[in-house]
């Protein structure tokens, strides 16, 4: 059981994690989800006592990590796979970790077999691929047969077979009653692995609920309605009728309508009343990925913009700077003028908590403290 209370971490003026409280329970896989730079790794490091929280505390089984007697026997962690001296062989790397916590050397052979690295045990880890490095890190985490396991982005760099393996491994570890805490920025991966989700954005808690609840609360149910092709007047008539009945109608690129806010039988009745034939009436729900994107879209630190290649263009004619007009490439898979599918729909809007505007560093309450932090 991992318990964080009011966890806050500031690096100088930047707040990486702010007032984070959550519990990770044994017997299930808990996914720790957030965009890049949202504070997942910082939180993991604070759990492991590598970074000291600025405020708040986090305990494992009631103890802070640095107070745990023989920590590797209680907690296993995969932080980043390359946290290894590349000149040392896989066997010696694991051996030195085993010796550190009084684990017999034969256990090293055992975990090397579990992760499938026995053949390269005597090879220096410098030559390992990303996937092999990841497996070595997982071997180190399993070494002490711990009851709490932390994995930071475990599927990074693994091939499909490896991803399936780690997915099953985490589920099995959880089914043995262990606490399994896995960070990821991939919702799709977590949907397949995790039972429970903790979502953070910009270092703050956005959601803490089971995967089932997460889908139920965050995915919008909608109906796809298609009227006969070549009869736009029928479509317009239906759109008007649905809108009148309180439905929310969005045109889709292929001419269909995306209707939310009305149950399917009611849509059928309305179409019948308006004397519009239907070619399609099907129920849909937004994917978990969509729900996650919608939740975190306000909390993404690094947002890409379109590459206009203006810097490569020949000197443009005077008075005409910037990219050629009409060259605004549309978002793939989305017709121009189409609303963003990840935009919050009007109904059941859930706004992520607004992060304290700009850096939530308190006003110059204590300048000396700030200075010491900046000096790092």
């Amino acid at each position, binding site marked *: *059981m991992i318990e964080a209370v009011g966890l806050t971490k500031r690096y100088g003026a930047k707040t990486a994690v702010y*007032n984070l409280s959550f*519990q990770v*329970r*044994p*017997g*299930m896989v808990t996914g720790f989800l957030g965009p890049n730079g949202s504070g997942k790794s910082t939180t993991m490091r604070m759990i*492991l*006592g*590598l*970074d000291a929280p*600025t405020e708040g505390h986090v305990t494992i089984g009631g103890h802070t990590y*640095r107070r745990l*007697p*023989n*920590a*590797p*026997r*209680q907690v296993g*962690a995969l*932080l*980043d796979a*390359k*946290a*290894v*001296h*590349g000149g*040392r062989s896989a066997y*010696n790397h694991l*051996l*030195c*970790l085993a*010796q*550190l*916590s*009084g684990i017999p050397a034969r256990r090293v052979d055992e975990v090397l077999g579990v992760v499938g690295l026995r053949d390269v045990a005597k090879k220096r880890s410098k030559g390992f691929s990303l996937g092999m490095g990841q497996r070595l890190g997982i071997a*180190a985490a399993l070494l002490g*047969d*711990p*009851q709490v396991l932390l994995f930071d982005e475990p599927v990074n760099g693994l091939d499909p077979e490896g991803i399936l393996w780690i997915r099953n491994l985490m589920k099995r570890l*959880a*089914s043995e*009653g262990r606490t399994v805490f896995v960070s990821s920025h991939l919702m799709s991966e977590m949907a397949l692995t995790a039972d429970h989700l903790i979502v953070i954005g910009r270092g*703050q*808690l956005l*959601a*803490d*609920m089971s995967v089932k609840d997460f889908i139920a*609360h965050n995915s919008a149910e909608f109906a796809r309605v298609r009227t006969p092709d070549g009869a736009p007047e029928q479509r317009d008539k239906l759109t008007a009728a649905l809108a009148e009945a309180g439905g929310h109608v969005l045109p889709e690129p292929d001419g269909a309508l995306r209707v939310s806010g009305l149950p399917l039988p009611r849509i059928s009745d309305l179409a019948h009343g308006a004397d519009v034939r239907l070619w399609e009436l099907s129920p849909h729900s937004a994917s978990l990925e969509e729900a996650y994107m919608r939740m975190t879209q306000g909390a993404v630190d690094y947002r890409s913009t379109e590459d206009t290649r203006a810097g490569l263009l020949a000197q443009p004619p005077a008075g005409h700077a910037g990219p050629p007009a009409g060259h605004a490439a549309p978002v793939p898979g989305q017709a121009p003028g189409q609303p963003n599918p990840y935009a919050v729909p009007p109904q*059941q*809007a*859930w*706004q992520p*908590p607004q992060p*304290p505007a700009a850096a*939530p560093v*308190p*006003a110059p*309450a204590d300048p000396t*403290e700030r200075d010491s932090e900046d000096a790092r």
Partner: protein
Amino acid sequence: MSTPRQSQAVPPVPPSQPGAPRAASQAFPGPHPGGHGYASPIPVRRTHLGHAVASEWTKIRSVRSTVWTLAVMFVLVLGIGLLTAFALGSQDTLEMPVLAGGFFGLMLGQLCVITLGVLVITSEYSTGMIRTTLTACPQRGRVLLAKALVFFLLSFTVTLAACTLTALVQTAMIEGKPVPEYIDPRMLNEETAATGQAVASAGEWLGATVGAALYVALLGLLSLAVGTLLRSTPGAITTMIGLVLLPFIVSLFLFTESVREFGEKLREYSVLNGLSSLFRIPFEGGSADTGWPLLWLLAGVTLAALIGAYARISTRDV
């Protein structure tokens, strides 16, 4: 770190907005509900410094940099010692103490030990291994102490072997040669002064073997502490080489009347003078200087640096 005023200055996260369900405290389904979890069948033992020492020994012997730096040091000390012995052996008289030839090789060899001392800790920071290590052993002081012990004993043993072998070679090749008459008898040890033939005294043996090895291993330990403080391989190696060479080089330029005395002090307390004094060929300080006082000074400085390194490693984030 925080005052109540600060935490009030920040708006709290809205705990539950309408439509923002937080089911943190609901009952969780699963095979192991509640706080009861897995318990390993293997008994959990309390760990102590011995475990950390075994781990550090595995670490230091399983990387190539250890083998390379110590092998180069060994070859430099023995090789240059042999060459010196040959050169001195071809002369009719011996103008310096019998074991003094060991100094020239060790002057270069100490740079290898310094490099290894730095690498023992900074390679963990540069590869990220330190995070793995400190996760496996959150008692950071224990990790640092184990590293210091293992490195110190290893570098001391290897340096002692190299110096002893060199001293044996020199005794075999040049001991017993006549000392030229122009040398002040007060500069010689008792036996040499009595017989006129160059002989190494017990004190000279101790200085040229145990003393020299202790001195170099302490320098390596200081490098380890500096590496912990700076966390950077090039930074720490540059600092240590500067510390070893600069005071002596600078002192050579301080020859004008106004600063000569300062230059002499600088030379007397330089790292190189400490080492050469142990071989009884001090750059400054006269024949009575055995090098041991400077060795104790170095030990004090190293201890202080290690305490600083301990304070840093146990408080800073990694």
